[in-house]
């Protein structure tokens, strides 16, 4: 047993778990405050006040909402398929959360008091007869750098569809079923354009590892090292960026592509029959998915954590990164405040007849430029 506790794998796993816990709490906070920001920004757009009572300017509103969700009565309708009904929100949320292990938050940073902390931990281990060799002076701000990071993200987001389909079916209600089917059809259609659009970036970077893709965009030309502006690939990358943004909004079922929960047609879509914490899980998954596509957009096209003075002060990396991610989250809210919903046939036509051919053409363009110039 002590050999297991001593092994390098074990230390790696514990380190990864700690990082996952920290990132998870952080992401949950971001999600909570995105909901708050959405309500405040929408209020500004619609000339109202929005939630401003709980705490200063309503800043404690997310926690009040969470308490409300927890204490609400959890109704399971009689006609539902109970197992799947309970399972569905879990299936939606877990893959959405699993993506966060490849988020590249920043470069390797020095941990404050890292030397002292690792010394204490090593001493503590020595007291129990362990031979730990923990070094926390420089830590990387990602849990793991997979060789297939980008494919991993797509794999996990494609698993989230099941939760929505299963939830819609298990509710045993026609609105839920229609919402679930609409949502899955929409997600499958737009996933094609989404995954084909990023190939331009992959050709430019020559790797699928998200941390390496970001590192390649750090150079002395600043903003002109970002993939969208980088010579000679900027043209296919700008087209890819546009396709990516549009299909990412459709992929997360947001306005103007929120057909799965069109309240004028389907009550609330696939989560019509859900209440209390189960509804909150669907809600959270939607915002975590928004975060994921924003992180991917930042990483692939806008240089990730790169920005001014990152080389001198590494802790500025996560700040730039989050600023860019928040820009995309703001874009989502902005669109929700300004655009009306598509019709379903328009949505499908647009996905299959405009975005998909455009993405395919873009691959040809990017490969041609890649062969000629890279």
């Amino acid at each position, binding site marked *: *047993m002590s*050999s*297991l506790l001593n*092994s390098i*794998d*074990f230390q790696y*796993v514990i380190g990864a778990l700690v990082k996952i816990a920290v990132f998870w709490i952080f992401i949950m906070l971001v999600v909570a405050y995105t909901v708050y920001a959405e309500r405040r920004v929408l209020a500004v757009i619609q000339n109202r006040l929005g939630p401003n009572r709980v705490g200063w300017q309503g800043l404690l509103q997310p926690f009040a909402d969470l308490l409300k969700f927890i204490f609400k009565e959890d109704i399971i309708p009689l006609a539902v*398929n109970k*197992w*799947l009904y309970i*399972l569905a929100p879990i299936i939606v949320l877990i893959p959405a959360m699993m993506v966060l292990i490849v988020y590249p938050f920043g470069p390797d940073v020095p941990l404050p008091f890292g030397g002292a902390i690792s010394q204490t931990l090593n001493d503590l281990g020595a007291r129990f007869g362990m031979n730990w060799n923990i070094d926390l002076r420089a830590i990387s701000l990602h849990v793991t750098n*997979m*060789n*297939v990071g980008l*494919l*991993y993200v*797509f*794999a*996990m987001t*494609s*698993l989230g*569809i*099941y939760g929505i*389909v*299963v939830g819609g*079916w298990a509710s045993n209600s026609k609105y839920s*079923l229609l919402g679930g*089917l609409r949502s*899955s059809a929409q997600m*499958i259609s737009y996933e094609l354009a989404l995954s084909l659009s990023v190939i331009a970036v992959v050709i430019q970077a020559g*790797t*699928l590892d998200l941390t390496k893709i970001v590192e390649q965009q750090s150079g002395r030309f600043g903003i002109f090292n970002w993939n969208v502006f980088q010579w000679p690939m900027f043209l296919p990358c700008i087209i890819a960026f546009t396709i990516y943004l549009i299909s990412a909004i459709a992929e997360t079922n947001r306005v103007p592509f929120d057909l799965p929960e069109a309240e004028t047609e389907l009550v609330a879509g696939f989560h019509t029959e859900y209440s209390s914490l189960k509804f909150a899980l669907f809600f959270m998954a939607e915002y975590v998915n928004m975060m994921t596509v924003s992180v991917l957009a930042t990483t692939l096209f806008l240089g990730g954590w790169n920005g001014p003075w990152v080389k001198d002060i590494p802790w500025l990396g996560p700040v730039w990164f989050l600023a860019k991610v928040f820009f995309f989250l703001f874009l989502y809210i902005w669109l929700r405040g300004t655009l009306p919903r598509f019709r379903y046939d328009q949505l499908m036509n647009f996905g299959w007849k405009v975005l998909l051919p455009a993405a395919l053409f873009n691959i040809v363009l990017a490969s041609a430029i890649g062969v000629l110039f890279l």
Partner: protein
Amino acid sequence: MEFSHILFLGLAALAVVAAFNVILQRNPIYSAIGLIVVLCSLAALFLTLSAQFIAAMQIIVYAGAIMVLFVFVIMLLNVRAEETRIDKQKYLKWLAAPLFLALLAEVMAVVQYVNLTPQPLPSANGAADPQGVLGTVENIANGMFINYLIPFEAASVLILMAIVGSMLLARRERKEDVERIEKALVAQQEEEQKYEEEVAA
């Protein structure tokens, strides 16, 4: 006991339990979900063998695309009828046990006779693979698009032929169907004409 052993045992147990779930459940939806769990745990096992690309493809292609179609079809068909259906071929039930035992014996025999000492895996350029780079995207791409380009392209032509063939089979027009559709079209046109005449009148 190493860490990879614990991982392997957990994932393998999950895969086996879920596989039993696939064949023992009456409700096809439960079976489909069991199959998805099997595919995901297999993908995780591939990851422990440092075959990252295969793992990602396992989830994207099988769990993410093919199983979605399965679930769709099951949900849109009437599942209740499937649950209460009585098996017509009763003798198959008696054949299942001996076949299962035969398969098990076969697997045992293979495990018995195969050389169990781990061999160093060759990478694309023929050298041994100590860092586990064999399963990376770069390596597989090298194999597929440089070393084995012609077999790869031939296989894709084969798959294209299968797609075209299935389209042809599915869309083959039967005579009575064509007649029925034509009749319906003519009737529809007549109705529209009648309506227009009424409106004009």
